[in-house]
């Protein structure tokens, strides 16, 4: 399929989008297009139908309440990062979002695209997982909710079935005295793909020790990875050196990266440990400040 023979549709409601996606196997959701169009240019071929979902009000809406955040799947990264409430409630998610590409790319790029593209190196995904985010999926047989950590099946593979699209994300309100953080390593300062990413969320008990934690690594396995052992190492601690060392060791052990042009196995494993401790410290300080 080539651009000359592709069709472009911009439905204005979810039903319309589902109908188009269900009717034609060669239909693809177009959100910001910063993955889809780039891949097309690199020779991946154009879809039969572009289903541009940015005209659907629900996919562009932002609702923030006591329960948490419900946000349309196509809200661009720039709008998310510029939202002060989102930035103060989920600073880790916000900073992950702000790392995607550059100012120009962020005017277009979206969480749904980042998630559905299912790259192991996607920046928003570990941060969203660390905060327990859920993707709301609409399809021919109605809607279903899938937590972000269960959404990606492998590089380029997701739970989406024919006719389905992500319509919004839900992030539960952060518990009191909890906070998140996200760090990634790239050789440059921007316009690069994560060599390693690490999202950490911690919740403190009344005494100021870590009561619960989530540690997620990106770019070191086929999908973003919960590192339970690293989280366990942090729980009960106030980030004493021993706890940090144990968490770093757990991350290094859990990482199963590949050698590629962005980093070697040995390097990625080391960095997985370093970013785990650094992100944990930031999340811990933020939680203490709340």
């Amino acid at each position: 399929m080539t651009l000359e023979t592709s069709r472009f549709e911009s439905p204005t409601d979810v039903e319309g989008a589902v109908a188009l996606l269900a009717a034609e196997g060669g239909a693809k959701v177009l959100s910001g297009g910063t993955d889809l169009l780039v891949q097309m240019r690199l020779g991946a071929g154009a879809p039969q139908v572009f289903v541009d979902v940015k005209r659907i009000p629900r996919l562009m809406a932002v609702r923030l309440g006591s329960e948490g955040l419900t946000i349309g799947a196509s809200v661009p990264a720039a709008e998310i990062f510029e939202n002060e409430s989102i930035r103060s409630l989920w600073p880790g998610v916000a900073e992950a979002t702000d790392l995607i590409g550059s100012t120009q790319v962020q005017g277009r790029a979206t969480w749904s695209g980042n998630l559905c593209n299912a790259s192991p190196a996607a920046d928003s995904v570990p941060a969203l997982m660390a905060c327990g985010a859920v993707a709301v999926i609409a399809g021919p047989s109605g809607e279903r909710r899938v937590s972000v950590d269960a959404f990606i099946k492998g590089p380029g593979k997701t739970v989406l079935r024919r006719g389905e699209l992500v319509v919004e994300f839900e992030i539960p309100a952060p518990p009191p005295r909890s906070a998140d953080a996200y760090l990634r390593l790239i050789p440059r300062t921007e316009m690069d793909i994560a060599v390693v990413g690490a999202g950490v969320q911690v919740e403190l008990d009344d005494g100021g020790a870590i009561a619960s934690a989530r540690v997620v690594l990106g770019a070191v396995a086929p999908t973003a990875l919960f590192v339970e052992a690293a989280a366990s190492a942090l729980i009960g601690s106030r980030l004493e050196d021993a706890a940090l060392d144990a968490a770093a060791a757990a991350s290094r052990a859990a990482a199963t990266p590949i050698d590629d042009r962005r980093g070697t196995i040995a390097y990625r494993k080391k960095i997985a440990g370093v970013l785990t401790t650094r992100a944990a410290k930031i999340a811990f300080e933020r939680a203490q400040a709340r």
Partner: protein
Amino acid sequence: MSADTNEGQERKFKRIGTRPIRHDGLDKVTGRARFGADYALPGMLHGVMVRSPYAHARILSIDISQAEKVPGVRAVVTRDDFPDVPIGWIPAGSTGVDLGANARTVMAREKVLFHGHAFAAVAATTELAAREAGKLIKVEWEVLTPVLSLEQALAKDAPILHEGQETKGDHPTPEGDSNIANQVCFEGGDIAAGFEEADVIVEGHFETPMVHQGYIEPHACLANVREDGTCEVWCPTQGAFGVKGEVASIAGIEPSLVKVTPTEIGGGFGGKIPVYIEPVAVVLSRKAARPVKITMSREEVFRGSGPTSGSRMWARIGAKSDGTFVAVETKFDFEAGAFRGSPVGAACMTVFSPYNCENFRIFGRDIVLNKPRVAAYRAPGAPIGAFAAESLIDELAMKLDRNPIDLRIQNAVAEGDRAKYGPRFGTIGFKEVLEATRSHPHYKAELGPNQGRGVAAGFWFNAGMQSSATVSVNDDGSAVVRTGNPDIGGSRASMALMCAEELGVDVARVRPLVGDTDSVGYCDPTGGSRVTYATGMAVIEATRQVVDHLRARAATIWDIELDAVEWQDGNAVAINGSAEKGSMSLEDIARKMRLTGGPIVSSASVNPPAAGPGFGVHVCDLEVDPETGVSKVIRYTVVQDAGKAIHPTYVEGQYQGGAAQGIGWALNEEYLWDAEGKVENAGFLDYRIPVASDLPMIDTVIVEVANPLHPYGVRGVGETPIVPPLGAVANAMRHATGIRFHRLPMSPPRVLDALDSDGASS
């Protein structure tokens, strides 16, 4: 122009040294400027190059019959559509030219010699049809073992890229066919005695990767061959006259039939001196009888154009305990890519020339292998050699416990000293630059934890060569200055400034133009840091002739002798016995041109055999994250002798641009190859040039030691700034981490690896 017309030291300039807005600025910031890919003609076809899937293979046969049947296809061309230009090196200046190699670089003939080497091209009504047709071209290949490293190229039983290629050049050359295309050697004094005499010797093996110029605009061209055989080409190029010659020779057309119009150009750095697609577009257009446009993708730019050599180097310095250099020696192996012509010669000529040392042996080899053929890249070869030399000088300073700038000043060349390649230096500003660096606040600033400071120097010859300029006066007293040098770094503003200075008018009254090959006198390319120097000379000369005309017209109007008219800041002024006539402005004279002899136009051409060399010193502060190996340049200062800065903003721009490219080369840039010789990172995502946020604002200091060869004292400034950074960054890394890196780039994984192995892997 002779040295006695030089006023660089004394003359009080009115406009030179100011910073007017560049004439092309508005069009560029509004996106209206037209670059190569912006040109189109009615009925135009889209051409695409068809590129080799192998790094080394013999072409046994090519069948284009299926490709020609694709709907929309109007022409398919291969080697059979091009004349067979014989291979052969024609020496020219410090390098040379091989027209046969140029032809084969553009369109493979006997063999493909690198992955991505073009062996056919298609023109069709759509780019898509052309690409589809390209896939249907059937080639019978005899796949050969690719030679992908210097080791492989030099191995005893190495596959030979060019049968019949014998090593040329200096000193015992290998017998028979060889991948060593050329050897150069500069020797002086007694090298063995020199090292014998030394109290300290520092030495090291160094490696640098093949890197690309990374210009922002991919190559593009539009060609139209007409029924009468005349041919027009529009393309972004550093030299339209060069394109004209190459098109004529490679496409087999009379040069007189070819007209080349240079478009606006988005960077070149040497990589837009050669042609890659222009002759092909011409041959396609000739065959299809329609205009043809070819635009290279970024991926094609990485696979098929540029780059500069990767290298393996060994060097050593012997010094007395007081710091005096007594012997220097190098052995350089440079990758030429598919055809001879690496810049190893220039690397050898520049490497130790900034320093006095009587005993020296500088040896280099130019080695072919199955990688893209190298093209010029800003001070070709010099940054590579300087990386080795300046790293070793830093080591020497540490061994002798000397300040690295003092040690350099002690050994620095000055006027009358001999360069290693022969000639004596004229007036140069190396010591002045070193002293300005030593007293700069940056050099004295405190450093924080994990930070290190590196200093390195660099030198580039700069070029003179041929240039022409035409200046014409409009009847409102404004002027047009036309040259044939594409403006890459703001040179139009500099040409206008020089013209305005001589005329004595506001620079806004002078419109600078870059002409096509039919509308201006011959100009060698925009390269060699030569335009402001040599083309500027032609502009000054032509403008002085215009001024003489203006004086003569005033003399006619006043009916007095020419000698009684002086030109003072835009006015003809009657002097001596005629002072009572007063003065007459340029506008007044221009308005009366038709009555006093008609239009005033003057042209001048120059061919200065030499230029004034440029010396620069860079200071780099680097901070290294010891846990990740990620480094960041936190402060960077460039100090360089410009002779005379015509438009200081564009001098500073050259300093900053060269530093930025050199920093990228030092820290992250490299081609990554798969086992078959295919570039794995043919794009800016994984070929990491620095982005704006990677660099601090690069500070600049313009030192002005007037160049006696130029009427205003100008020296070229474009290339010297890329010579020191590789060494400066490596020296900063040494002082931040305690580890001497011998291999570039110093990317985060390599740095962390070296830190974790105590330098064993550096």
